[in-house]
């Protein structure tokens, strides 16, 4: 589903990713772990299409198509979803209106008809309940005045509503207490399925206790420096990232 080959990415003149190779098949959950500054967030932004990240070498294929050539909204309509580390606050737009606008924008881009307000409401309510997102939150302006936990729950709610084929979770665990973390992890686990691939990006092993990945990649200095099964997370937890940071890039 996702095939990244020898990816080099610069921000301004500064190279951040330096030859990253990674592939994820449908139904799999992969984790990317790495210390601060290793390029984790850059990878998530490049996949979602944020401006200012220049691909200087290599390629990203998504379902066989060149992902880098697509604007962010086209990627979203084709099933790429990034749960962001810092969801933005947008005053003046209620969360419910935003969800309806986004959902129908994606549907339209795929040539499907709009869902009417009643059906959007039904869908949102059904998904919101499991994530403990209240009606009151849906009426508030998007993310405005939301706590860190509420913002992250809303990100996962969007994932549940949009039903992406490739979900990227960027530091979804940051700023969450253990109860919120479990709630979010349950929400993510409920979305695991044979057609969906997930990429979980995290600094800490903690999240991976709850979202158990099929494969773990360690990112350091812009490259994958180690790979393994879920047990790799425990090893990292015990030994830290220093063993990789010291290796020459």
């Amino acid at each position, binding site marked *: 589903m996702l095939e990244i080959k020898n990816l080099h990415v610069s921000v301004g003149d500064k190279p951040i990713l330096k030859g990253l190779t990674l592939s994820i098949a449908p139904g799999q959950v992969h984790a990317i772990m790495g210390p601060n500054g290793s390029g984790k967030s850059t990878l998530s932004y490049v996949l*979602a299409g944020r401006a200012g990240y220049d691909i200087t070498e290599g390629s990203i294929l998504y379902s066989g198509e060149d992902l880098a050539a697509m*604007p962010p*909204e086209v990627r*979203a309509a084709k099933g790429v979803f990034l749960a962001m580390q810092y969801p933005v606050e947008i005053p*003046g737009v209620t969360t419910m209106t935003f969800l309806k606008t986004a*959902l129908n*924008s*994606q549907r339209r881009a795929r040539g499907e008809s709009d869902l009417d307000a009643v059906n959007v409401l039904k869908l949102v309510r059904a998904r919101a309940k499991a994530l403990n997102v209240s009606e009151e939150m849906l009426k508030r*302006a998007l993310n405005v005045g939301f706590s860190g936990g509420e913002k992250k729950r809303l990100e996962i709610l969007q994932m549940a509503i949009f039903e992406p084929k490739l979900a990227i979770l960027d530091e979804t665990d940051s700023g969450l207490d253990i109860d919120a973390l479990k709630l979010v992890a349950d929400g993510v686990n409920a979305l695991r399925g044979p057609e969906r691939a997930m990429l979980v990006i995290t600094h800490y092993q903690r999240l991976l206790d709850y979202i158990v990945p099929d494969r773990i990649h360690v990112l350091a200095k812009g490259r994958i420096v180690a790979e393994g099964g879920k047990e790799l997370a425990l090893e990292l937890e015990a030994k830290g990232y220093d063993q990789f940071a010291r290796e020459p890039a």
Partner: protein
Amino acid sequence: MTALAERRAEARTIFEGHGLPTRRVEEWKYSGLKEALDEAGLGEDTAYVRLLGRLPEGVEYCDLANPKPWAAAHFGTLARNAVSEASLAFAEGGLALRVPAGKAVAEPLLLETGGAGHARLLLVLEDGASLTLFETTDMAGTRNTGFEIVLAADAHLAHVRLARPVEDVQVEEIALSLAARARYDGHFASFGGKLARAELTIALEGEGAQAHLSGVSVLGANAHADVTTHVIHRKGNTRSTQLFKHVAGGKAHAVYQGKVTVAKGADGADSRQTAKALLLSETAEADLKPELEIFADDVKCAHGAAVGDLDADSLFYLRARGIPEAHARAILMYAFLEDALEPIANEDLRGAVRTGVQAALRSLL
């Protein structure tokens, strides 16, 4: 000669003495009136003022050509400048409105000014009276409107002014006087014109009087919109707040000039001023000039101005959720304006202003 005729003759002399203001006049620095008008200037015709719908129960009116004593007592008494003197001199008659003491009028009063020429309005709220006024403009015509508003003690006026987009020069000078504990909530929306200006001179004459202003302008192509305010705190414990937001694209020009004066002895005065502009093109322009003049000791005054572009993080967030770029931009522009629309208390009027703002934003894309 009647007192009214004398006052109008005086106004004519003052206007002719000053002539039309050019950019060299400080208050008109960003909006040269003389430069924007052709040879005919503002002319000497009378524009119209009319009620939309019925007169709400509890509101009295008369024609300024034949004023009742309550109208004659105030007509032509508030702040004077050359342009407001012109409307006084040339407008034949005009509309005077009064809400008697203690009367709370629930239904909004809807007014429209239109046509070419000069128009005059007077509104008097007596002690403890309250009213919601919706003022709008019809499209065409070079127009100069002079509006005097007198708020007696404990009176409360909510004023919503929605200026429709025009190709012409349209200016309005609104002069207010507030007695003790009176309150004025003024909300202004403009979509510009060749030169569209709302000028407010607000005198907080009584202890505890307050004025709260908010406004938006949405401008494209060659539109020009100017909001110029002067709030004078003359007594203690007076309060004023101002929040003005502009969105300008194309070669549009947005202007906010806001002066706050705190007179000697107006201790405990509290004033806040914020003006922000979002520029959507290299050729759009915004001049934001908040200004303070303080002669009292114990006051709280704050002001700020900022000009910027749409937030890149927010734009990316919306697009990453599948919302096409043009639509995402429209959402963010609306979000930028929202806190300046939200203070409109009357839901129907807020809805009418929002509809106008959304239509104007769509035409900017």
